[in-house]
């Protein structure tokens, strides 16, 4: 199966300020577009990891085909420089990470919600682990169970 290569396929960044320079280096290497930009929430260690997958259209022989960048962010105030200047393809995905995780992308040209209603979801970030999905199937559940939050 493809994807598991011996070449180092990821880079972990402890200090978010270093992200633009890492991104610039990767872009010069040939990684010209962002496939995915999102995050994973780790409430236990009070961290949010910004996870970026980049790939190349122009360089056929690039290895690995998909490179992963992980940036450790402080969960209480996740801020990171925007990558839109380096990779314009990140624009909408940064907006999504902003609404879903509350990550603020500094110098993003147009940072606002993209999928969620800005009024209903102001200050609420549904993909964080502490956001609990309310179960609505009251026909099957006792009222107490619904009150207690349903599925996590």
């Amino acid at each position: 199966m493809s994807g598991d290569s011996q070449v180092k396929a990821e880079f972990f960044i402890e200090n978010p300020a270093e992200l633009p320079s890492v991104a610039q280096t990767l872009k010069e290497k040939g990684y010209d577009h962002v496939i995915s930009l999102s995050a994973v929430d780790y409430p236990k260690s009070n961290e949010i990891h910004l996870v970026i997958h980049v790939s190349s259209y122009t360089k056929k022989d690039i290895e690995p085909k998909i490179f992963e960048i992980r940036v450790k962010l402080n969960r209480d105030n996740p801020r990171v420089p925007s990558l839109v200047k380096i990779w314009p393809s990140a624009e909408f995905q940064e907006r999504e990470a902003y609404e879903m995780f509350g990550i603020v992308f500094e110098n993003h040209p147009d940072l606002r919600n993209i999928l969620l209603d800005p009024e209903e979801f102001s200050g609420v970030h549904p993909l964080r682990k502490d956001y609990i999905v309310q179960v609505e199937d009251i026909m099957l559940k006792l009222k107490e169970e619904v009150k207690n939050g349903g599925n996590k």
Partner: protein
Amino acid sequence: MEAISDIGGGISARKIDDKTMILFFGPQHPSSGHMRIILKLDGDVIIESDPDIGYVHRTMEKLSETKEWIKNSVLFERLAILDAGNVTQAYIIALEKLLGIEPPERALYLRTILSEINRISSHLYGMGIFAIMLGSSTGYMWFFGDREIMVQLAERITGSRLTHTYHIPGGVRRDVSKSFFEELEKGLNYIEKRLRHYEIMFVNNPVVRSRIENVGILSRERAIDLGVTGPNARASGIDFDVRVEEPYGAYSFVDFEVPVYKEGDALARTFQRMDEIRQSISILRQLSKSIPEGPILNEKYLKLFTPAMKEVLEKDKRIKFPAIFTSLKPPSGKAYGRVEEGRGEIFFYLESNGEPKPYRVRVVTPSFRNSILLKYLPVGYRLADLPAIYGSIDYFPPEADR
């Protein structure tokens, strides 16, 4: 955005200069699903375009964290039900990497057959919507009517027309009979013949052609910068196809070309889809000739079958899930799966912490990646060109909103 002022009675208004008009295109199903584009017009020239998507957001990434691994394949195929086989395949490929299991060869062939049938039907659907956006009812009826053949072929393989749930970890859910390949050949012959009709009646129809030629031109550099994917990228000269770059399924056993156009306009994107259907037909013919006999599920799982399950497999050629499937616990780790869907690359990133439910699933769909085009491509064109631009990029809102 301009300041909003309250003009009394709870009604607010937004002051704009006299030359500019703001037009809301949508959100009530402007064509292929609920979404809207907020346009700023100078006369009838579009000077700003702001796609407002999310009207059919179904919280799939969050929901997936509440469901068992196997149940999520049923959830995710609803991203784009007209291309469900390809969507599920990407998820299952990523899940198989976590589980460290590989499907047998016959299952790979069957997966690829379904993928290509899905691709043809997805392209026919996209072109049908495109045709009706341009006002060509004949095109719409033809593409949608002919798509039915592909949908029925998919039904013959999987048992359901759209939401196939065909891929399972380590294999596929059902086998096909020999007579299926005769029907497949019949269907392919028909579509092949019809492709010539489409060119005469739809693409080269002077009315249609004048509306799509040199409209919505996307240069190669811009397509790379915006990360555009799939047929839209290839119609702008990017020679990139996941089936070639990271072969999965049975693509390494077949010989096919990746069509590329350099014009990058709505016409090139239409020809691109037609050419891709031709290649899919060729791939399907090669696969149906060379498909090997053998099991359709990995040995590791077949060993767990009870005598009753074995009997169903012998008699009906279908898999009854072994009990282990309900409580799959992939070891801690992460994996990605990528597949070339009809509209472009779909990407799954899974993170497991050894539990029966995923810790995190990230999915990026081709329509979401292409939605950025709705912001940058219409600018400078006339309002009447918008349906041609929107239709030609084959944007599918439910897939983009996830």
